C-alpha cells in the first residue's frame, strides 16, 4: 500500500472524513451491528417480561418503550445500515467501478443516519423513549406525553434523509459507473437487487418524510392533522406510513435475496438458474410493493371493495417470490453444494422464508386477516420474513464477504455453532407465536392473564429468544477473535464468480488498478475457467483520480442533530444555530472546489497490473 504514503493521516480524522465507499461500508456495518445488539437486547427484555402470565419485570410503560424501540431500531438502525454497509462495500466492486457516483453524498448519508440513530436513542436518557409503536400511529403518538415521540419523529426524519440520498447515490452509481461490458443483464443479482432497492427508497421514503413531518407539526406547532375534534383524520397517517412501510419491507428483503442468489450459486459451483427470470421477479416485486400497502389496514374500515382489490394485489406478489424460491432450489439441483457457514445461512433461509411467505399469503385474505391482524400471528409472520429473510441474509453475507471487506476469514466452527443455535432459537421463538395469535393474544401487550391457555407457548418463545441471544454472543466472540488473530484470506477464498473476487482482499482504495473488461455474466468465473489469473483490462494503466475527503458531512449532521434536539426542548435560538451550522456546511461544500487528487501509476503495486 505504498500508494500515497506521503499523505500521513490521523486514523480518527481519517474515519471521520473518509469518502471511500469501502470505509463508509465498514462504518455502516459497525454502527448497524451496534444498533443490532441494542435492538436484540430490547427484544430479550420484552421476552423476559412475557415469560410468565402477569409477570412483573419491566412494567407497562417501559415495555411499550422497549417494543417501540425494538421495532424502530431493528428496521431503521440495524437492518437498513447493515444493508447499506454491504451495498457500499460490495456493489462498486461487483460492477468494476473505482468509486461510487457521489462519494461526498455517500459519506453525508452515513453521518446523517448516525446522527438520527443517536438522537432516537437519546430518549432513553432524557425522560423516556418513544412508546407509540414503531408505526407511530396517531393520535396515540400525537398525544403521547413526554418527549419520547419527538425523538422518534426527528431521529427518523434525519436518518431518513441520509437513507434517501444514499439511495440516489446507488441508483446513479449502478447506471453510470459500470465497467465496459458490464451490461445490465450481466450484473450480479446483489447489484440488481441493490439497484431496485435504491429505487424503492427513492419513491417510498418521501411518504414517510411527510408522515413524520405532519406528526412533528401536530406535536410541536399545534397543527390539527390528526385531531378529530378539529376535523383532522388519523387514517391519513396510517396511509402515509404504509405507503412507505410496505415498500420498506422489500427495501430490506430484496438485497438479502440478492445475497442468497450470489451465495447459493457460488457454493453450488453453478451459474444462477434462470438469471433473467430472477431479475424480472425482483423488479416485479419492487413494482408490486407500491400497490399493496392497504393489506396492513384491512381492519381500518376502508370497505370491502378496497380490501378485495388490495387482497388480490397482495396475493400476486407470491408469484414472483415463488419464482425466486424455485430458481434457488434449481440452482443447487445438479450442483456440487458445499456448506460453509455462509451457505448454511443461505440454505437455512429457504424453508424459514417459505413459512413466512405462506403466512403472508394467508394474511392477504381480508376475512382471515380480521382474525390475524394485530395478533401474535402477525408478529410470527413478519419475524419469519424479516429474521428468516433479512437477518439470515445479513449473516450469510457477513460470513461470505468478511474476507473481502477485512482480509480475514471468520472462524468456521464458531460460525456453524452460531448458525445452529440461531436457527433453532429462531424457530422456537417464532413458530409458537402463530398459535398464540390464533388463540387470541393481541400483539404489543405487556402481559397476559393466566388461565387463557397462553402460558406454554409464551414460555417456549422466551426460551427461543435466549437461544438466539446466546447465538449472537458467539457471533460477537467470533468477530472479536477474528479481528485480533484471524486467518488471512486469499483474494478468492470461495472460488467466487463475480468481480469483487478478482482483486486483493481487502480491496485497495482505488479498487481496480485498471478498469476490467467484462465478457459475460459471472465475469470472474468465466476468466478463471478460460485459464486467466486476472481480469482483462479495459484501459491502459494510468494515474488514478481519487475524491477529496471532507469533514463537512460530520458538521452538517451535527448541525441538524443540534437543531432537532434543541427543537424538542423548544430552545429556538440553539435550533437556529444548528440549522445555521448545517447551512454553512452546505455553502462551504458549494463554494470550495473539490478536484480530488491522483495516485500516480508509478506508485501502484506491480501485482494485478497488466503491463502493455
Amino acid at each position: 500500500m505504498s500508494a500515497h504514503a506521503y499523505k500521513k493521516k490521523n486514523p480518527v480524522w481519517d474515519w471521520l472524513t473518509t469518502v471511500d465507499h469501502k470505509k463508509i461500508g465498514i462504518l455502516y456495518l459497525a454502527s448497524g451491528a451496534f444498533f443490532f445488539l441494542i435492538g436484540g437486547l430490547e427484544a430479550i427484555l420484552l421476552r423476559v417480561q412475557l415469560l410468565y402470565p402477569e409477570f412483573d419485570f419491566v412494567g407497562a410503560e417501559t415495555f411499550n418503550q422497549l417494543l417501540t424501540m425494538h421495532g424502530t431500531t431493528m428496521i431503521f438502525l440495524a437492518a437498513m445500515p447493515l444493508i447499506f454497509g454491504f451495498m457500499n462495500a460490495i456493489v462498486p466492486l461487483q460492477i468494476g467501478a473505482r468509486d461510487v457516483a457521489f462519494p461526498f453524498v455517500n459519506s453525508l448519508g452515513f453521518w446523517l443516519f448516525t446522527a438520527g440513530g443517536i438522537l432516537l436513542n437519546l430518549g432513553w436518557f432524557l425522560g423516556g423513549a418513544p412508546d407509540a409503536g414503531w408505526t407511530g400511529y396517531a393520535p396515540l403518538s400525537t398525544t403521547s406525553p413526554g418527549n419520547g415521540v419527538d425523538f422518534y419523529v426527528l431521529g427518523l426524519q434525519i436518518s431518513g434523509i441520509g437513507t434517501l440520498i444514499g439511495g440516489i447515490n446507488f441508483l446513479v452509481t449502478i447506471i453510470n459507473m459500470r465497467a465496459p461490458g458490464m451490461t445490465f443483464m450481466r450484473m450480479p443479482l446483489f447489484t440488481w437487487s441493490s439497484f431496485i432497492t435504491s429505487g424503492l427508497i427513492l419513491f417510498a421514503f418521501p411518504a414517510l418524510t411527510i408522515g413524520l413531518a405532519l406528526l412533528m407539526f401536530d406535536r410541536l406547532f399545534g397543527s390539527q392533522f390528526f385531531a378529530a375534534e378539529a376535523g383532522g383524520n388519523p387514517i391519513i397517517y396510517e396511509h402515509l406510513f404504509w405507503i412507505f412501510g410496505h415498500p420498506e419491507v422489500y427495501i430490506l428483503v430484496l438485497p438479502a435475496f440478492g445475497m442468497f442468489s450470489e451465495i447459493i450459486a457460488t457454493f453450488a459451483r453453478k451459474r444462477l438458474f434462470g438469471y433473467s427470470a430472477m431479475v424480472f421477479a425482483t423488479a416485479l416485486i419492487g413494482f408490486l410493493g407500491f400497490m399493496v400497502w392497504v393489506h396492513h389496514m384491512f381492519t381500518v374500515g376502508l370497505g370491502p371493495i378496497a380490501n378485495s382489490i388490495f387482497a388480490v394485489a397482495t396475493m400476486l406478489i407470491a408469484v414472483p417470490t415463488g419464482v425466486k424460491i424455485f430458481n434457488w432450489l434449481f440452482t443447487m439441483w445438479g450442483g456440487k453444494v458445499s456448506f460453509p457457514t455462509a451457505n448454511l445461512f443461505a440454505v437455512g433461509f429457504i424453508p424459514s422464508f417459505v413459512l413466512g411467505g405462506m403466512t403472508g399469503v394467508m394474511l392477504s385474505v381480508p376475512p382471515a386477516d380480521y382474525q390475524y391482524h394485530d395478533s401474535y400471528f402477525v408478529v410470527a409472520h413478519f419475524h419469519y420474513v424479516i429474521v428468516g429473510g433479512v437477518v439470515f441474509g445479513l449473516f450469510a453475507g457477513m460470513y461470505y464477504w468478511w474476507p473481502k471487506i477485512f482480509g480475514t476469514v471468520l472462524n468456521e466452527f464458531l460460525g456453524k455453532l452460531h448458525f445452529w443455535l440461531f436457527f433453532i432459537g429462531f424457530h422456537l421463538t417464532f413458530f409458537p407465536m402463530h398459535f398464540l395469535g390464533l388463540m387470541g393474544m393481541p400483539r404489543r401487550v405487556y402481559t397476559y392473564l393466566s388461565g387463557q391457555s397462553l402460558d406454554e407457548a409464551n414460555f417456549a418463545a422466551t426460551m427461543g429468544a435466549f437461544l438466539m441471544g446466546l447465538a449472537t454472543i458467539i457471533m460477537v466472540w467470533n468477530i472479536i477473535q477474528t479481528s485480533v488473530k484471524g486467518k488471512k484470506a486469499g483474494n478468492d477464498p470461495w472460488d467466487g464468480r463475480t468481480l469483487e473476487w478478482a482483486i486483493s482482499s481487502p480491496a485497495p482504495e482505488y479498487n481496480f488498478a485498471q478498469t476490467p473488461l467484462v465478457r459475460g455474466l459471472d465475469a470472474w468465473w468465466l476468466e478463471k475457467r478460460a485459464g486467466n489469473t486476472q481480469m482483462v483490462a479495459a484501459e491502459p494503466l494510468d494515474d488514478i483520480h481519487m475524491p477529496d475527503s471532507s469533514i463537512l458531512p460530520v458538521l452538517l449532521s451535527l448541525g441538524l442533530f443540534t437543531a432537532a434536539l434543541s427543537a424538542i426542548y423548544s430552545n429556538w435560538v440553539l435550533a437556529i444555530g444548528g440549522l445555521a451550522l448545517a447551512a454553512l456546511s452546505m455553502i462551504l461544500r458549494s463554494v470550495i472546489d473539490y478536484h480530488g487528487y491522483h495516485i500516480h501509476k508509478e506508485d501502484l503495486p506491480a501485482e494485478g497490473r497488466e503491463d502493455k
Partner: protein
Amino acid sequence: MKSNEAMTKLPANPERATLEGKNKFLGFWFFLGGETVLFASLFGVYLGLRNATNGGVTANELFELPLVFIATMLLLTSSLTSVFATMALKTNHFKRMIGWFVVTGLLGLGFLGLEIYEFNHYVHEYGHTIKSSAWGSAFYTLVGTHGAHVFMGISWITLLIIRNLRRGMDLYTAPKFYLFALYWHFIDVVWIFIFTVVYLMGKVG
C-alpha cells in the same frame, strides 16, 4: 481541469460532458422523482382535509384570485427566463446566462413576497392559522413547503452567481447552473398544481 480560456468552446451539452456532470444530472433528476412523491403526499393530505374547516373560514371565502393570478404569472415568467438562461448556457454565453438567472431570482423573490403578504393577510384578517382547523394545517403545510422550495432556490442561485461570477463557464460550473434550472422548472410544475388544486378548486367549492 484545463484553464478557462482553453474551454471557451464547450461541447453541445456542457452539463453532461464529464462523468461528474452526468452523475449530477441523473442524480438530480432522480431527486426530482422523489420530490414528486413528497409533494403528492402533501396534495393528498390537502385533498383529504380540504373540507375540514372546523366551522371556520372556508376556501371560497378566503382566497382572492387576482393575487394568485399575479403570483402565477411571476412564477411562469421566471420559468421562461430560466429557459433563456439554459439556452445561453448551452451556447456558452456566460454573461447572458447570469443576466437571465438574476431576472429569474428576482421574479422568484417577487413571488415569495406575495406569498408572505398573503399568509400574513389570512392570519391577521381572517384568523386562519395552522392551528385553526385541519384544513388550515394542510393549507399552510402544502403551500408553505412550496414556498420553502422557492426560498431554497433563490438562495441557491444567489450563491451560484456570487461564487462563479469571476470563474466563468466551464465543465465544472455548467452542471451546477443547469441543475438549478431543472429545479426551478420543477417548482413551477408544483405551483401549477397548487394554483389549480388549492386556489381554483377552492373557489369552485
